[in-house]
């Protein structure tokens, strides 16, 4: 099936040839998961046939809110695919069989998530939130809470939500004003308003389980005083079936630039003073508990960004192959015959840029999930090192892949010219929809602060050195392949500059210029993403280059192209090698200028006075 969602061959390259998931499946924990290629095949089929057709209609129709009934309606075309998604058992594929899951490695789950997000961001986005809520209850819930809520959430029968943000408490979560007052029966009376609640109300599920951050009356200000509560829409009866209507209502929905098919609600808790919530986990531990959910979501948002990039890239390739304009500038072609614009060097440049970021970003996301899998099958210090890599890479997966999705969807629009701007093609929708991923689950600014202060300096560079150690091994291996030695040297230079920059930042932290760090967080995350992708591309080159050589050897252009035209596998490796070489040999050169920028001693950002922005 021709698919313009995600390149399955590239997914298999990363899973099998790069990360060697087959070796992971030799651990007893994953021994029964050797059949993952079939799972991926079925995921692609499902995403193409069931999910993707709902997307354009979902965007066009959008979600509607009825102020009289306070009900939200999803587009009609969502019901069938949502049911089939749940029936397929996809939501809990990486969870323990004890909770109804199939225990797949998360790396495989990440590959499936990329396909499903690309298929229909709206539907899978709603479903994944439910999954995240189930994971929090699995980790922190009482036996009774697990019995009543968890399995239904893992099965997707009820919708789970994350209720953090309030009008005055966005990035500053500690400013939450929602209050919880103890009831005599041990439950709590919840009063407050939450905004930006994804899938807070709709007509696809019978019940909703809101995970609400609130402050028990009298508890301290700031994040330390926050506790996490389960607030069901319909309070389950003893048998666990939806019972009495709880006092939690959707009071309005947002009108947004994109994401029309996934509703964003304002939720009022206890407007009539009758909202009952149940403490989840420990009092005052709401933030760390919520972050259990948040970390998983941040990785997934990075995958969401990737899925938009992938979708835009494949559609751009398809469009430019079928749009004939102008003659070829290549001397061996007829200048007067119109060619598909994919043959024009400037269009190739855009496509190769997209390919390099998509395939690099995919390697980044899958590798991070792979680190989680490795942490789960190893022990002691080794497990700790894998876990440390997850900590370090999570903000980069989230922010770098989503920032790039905005750039890549823009490039895809550019490839299609005026048509790219029209809604007859998916490009403008992808650009509108992807932007929210730079804002979801902690804006990318917050991710950059997390990387700089918590993950890098707060960790005293320990995890950073684990990562550069891995880079060193790849650089050494690539250096042994003659045709890659030059690329290995470039990546070594970038890695060494990164190390020097990080040392410089660490020194700055204790100095008078410590404030400068706050102006450097986002540029640093961007740069660390650049260098991490360079390493991952070099790693991929060490696999693809020898395989390409096997297929085409050192043949000239004509003979080589004749082989590539016939041999799909050789053409794939040629594309991998070109993308890797373009990234390291060309795109990465920009990063050396970025290093210079980070080293700059003067800092107008810090010195700028707030009254001086406008006259």
């Amino acid at each position: 099936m021709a698919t313009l969602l995600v390149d399955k061959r590239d997914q298999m390259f990363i899973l099998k040839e790069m990360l060697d998931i087959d070796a992971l499946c030799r651990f007893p924990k994953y021994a029964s998961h050797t059949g993952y290629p079939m799972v991926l095949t079925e995921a692609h089929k499902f995403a193409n046939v069931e999910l993707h057709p709902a997307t354009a209609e979902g965007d066009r129709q959008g979600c509607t809110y009825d102020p009289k009934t306070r009900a939200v309606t999803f587009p009609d075309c969502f019901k069938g695919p949502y049911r089939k998604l749940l029936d397929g058992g996809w939501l809990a594929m990486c969870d323990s069989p004890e909770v109804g899951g199939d225990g797949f490695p998360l790396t495989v789950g990440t590959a499936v998530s990329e396909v499903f997000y690309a298929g229909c961001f709206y539907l899978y986005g709603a479903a994944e939130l439910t999954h995240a809520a189930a994971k929090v209850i699995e980790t922190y819930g009482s036996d009774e809470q697990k019995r009543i809520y968890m399995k239904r959430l893992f099965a997707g029968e009820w919708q789970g939500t994350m209720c953090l943000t309030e009008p005055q408490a966005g990035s500053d979560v500690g400013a939450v004003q929602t209050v919880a007052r103890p009831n005599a029966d041990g439950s709590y009376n919840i009063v407050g308003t939450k905004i930006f609640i994804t899938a807070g109300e709709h007509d696809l599920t019978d019940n909703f389980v809101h995970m609400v951050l609130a402050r028990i009356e009298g508890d301290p200000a700031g994040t330390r005083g926050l506790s996490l509560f389960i607030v069901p829409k319909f309070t389950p009866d003893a048998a666990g079936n939806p019972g009495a209507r709880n006092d939690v209502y959707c009071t309005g929905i947002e009108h947004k630039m994109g994401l029309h098919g996934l509703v964003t609600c304002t939720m009022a808790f206890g407007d009539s003073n009758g909202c009952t919530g149940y403490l989840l986990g420990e009092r005052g531990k709401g933030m760390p508990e919520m972050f259990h959910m948040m970390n998983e979501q941040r990785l997934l948002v990075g995958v969401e960004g990737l899925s938009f990039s992938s979708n835009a890239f494949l559609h751009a390739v398809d469009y430019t192959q079928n749009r004939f304009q102008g003659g070829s500038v290549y001397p061996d072609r007829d200048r007067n015959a119109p060619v598909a614009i994919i043959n024009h060097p400037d269009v190739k440049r855009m496509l190769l840029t997209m390919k390099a970021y998509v395939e690099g970003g995919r390697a980044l996301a899958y590798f991070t999930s792979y680190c989680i899998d490795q942490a789960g099958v190893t022990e002691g210090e080794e497990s700790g090192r894998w876990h440390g890599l997850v900590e370090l890479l999570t903000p980069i997966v989230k922010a770098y892949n989503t920032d790039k999705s905005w750039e890549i969807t823009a490039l895809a629009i550019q490839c299609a010219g005026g048509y790219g701007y029209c809604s007859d093609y998916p490009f403008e929708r992808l650009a509108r929809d992807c932007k929210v991923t730079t804002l979801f689950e902690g804006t990318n600014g917050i991710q950059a602060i997390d990387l700089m202060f918590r993950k890098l300096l707060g960790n005293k560079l320990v995890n950073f050195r684990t990562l550069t150690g891995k880079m060193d091994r790849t650089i050494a291996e690539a250096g042994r392949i003659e045709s890659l030695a030059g690329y290995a040297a470039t990546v070594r230079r970038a890695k060494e500059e990164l190390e020097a920059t990080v040392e410089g930042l660490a020194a700055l932290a204790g100095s008078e210029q410590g404030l400068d760090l706050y102006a450097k967080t986002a540029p640093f995350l961007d740069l660390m993403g650049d260098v991490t992708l360079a390493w991952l591309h070099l790693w991929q080159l060490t696999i693809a280059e020898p395989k390409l050589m096997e297929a085409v050897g050192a043949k000239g252009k004509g003979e080589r192209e004749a082989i590539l035209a016939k041999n799909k596998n050789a053409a794939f490796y040629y594309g991998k090698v070109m993308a890797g070489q373009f990234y390291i040999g060309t795109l990465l050169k920009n990063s050396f200028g970025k290093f210079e920028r980070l080293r700059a001693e003067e800092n107008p950002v810090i010195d700028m006075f707030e009254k001086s922005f406008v006259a």
Partner: protein
Amino acid sequence: MKVLVCIKQVPDMESRFKLNAAGNWYDTADLAWRMNEYDEFAVEQAVLLKEKAPDTELVALSIGPERVKEAMKKALAMGIDRGVHVQDEASFEKDPYQIASVIAEYARNENFDLILTGMQSQDRGSAQVGILVGEMLGLPAVSTVVGFALDGQVVTAKRELEGGLKAVVKVGLPALFTCQLGLNTPRYPTLPNIMKAKKKELTAIPVATLLKDEALAVTEKVSYPEKRGSGLVLEGEIGELTTKLVALLKEKTSVFK
């Protein structure tokens, strides 16, 4: 009840086909494979029967090289109980008669109450195998089935005929049916069932032990369709265009005759 479902693995029809070196079939390198679409309807019909009568035993059979196991695993994941893989590296060289005789040879002593096949394969498209198996086993065979209802030992089947006509036939079991598109909606294998499928029995039988007959027909040569002339674009005002079009239709077609 014991049911046999015959399935074939075929290339994804959106593949770019190339001829093989001998020029008598397509080149199998670089192709993505799938279960023959018509066979998916057969598998689904079998699984629906088992859902109503859980003691039904469902067996899937496929002939071909190692890779056909992938199609069989899909059938197992959809709900078939066990698979029989007839190993044959050269199945593409066998004519429908030989393929049918291999299946009949396997089925002869297995006492199947019901045999389901696809109406035809998407690659060869001969639409003969199912009917031939029925003949060889002395079973009634009903082709191009778009409706299927079992009551006791009698099946009421709806057949698709030319021109949109349908025929309803009643057949006592044992019998064979070839399944046409639209008979049902083949299910997606659920993840838990994909996992379970790996533990299901998949027996291998070398084709030589079942092959008794010579081919009746040999594919000498396959070729691409001849390239046809490009379309004709008429230009001009609407009235003028209509005149030109009518003249062309009169001259080159039988529309106005």
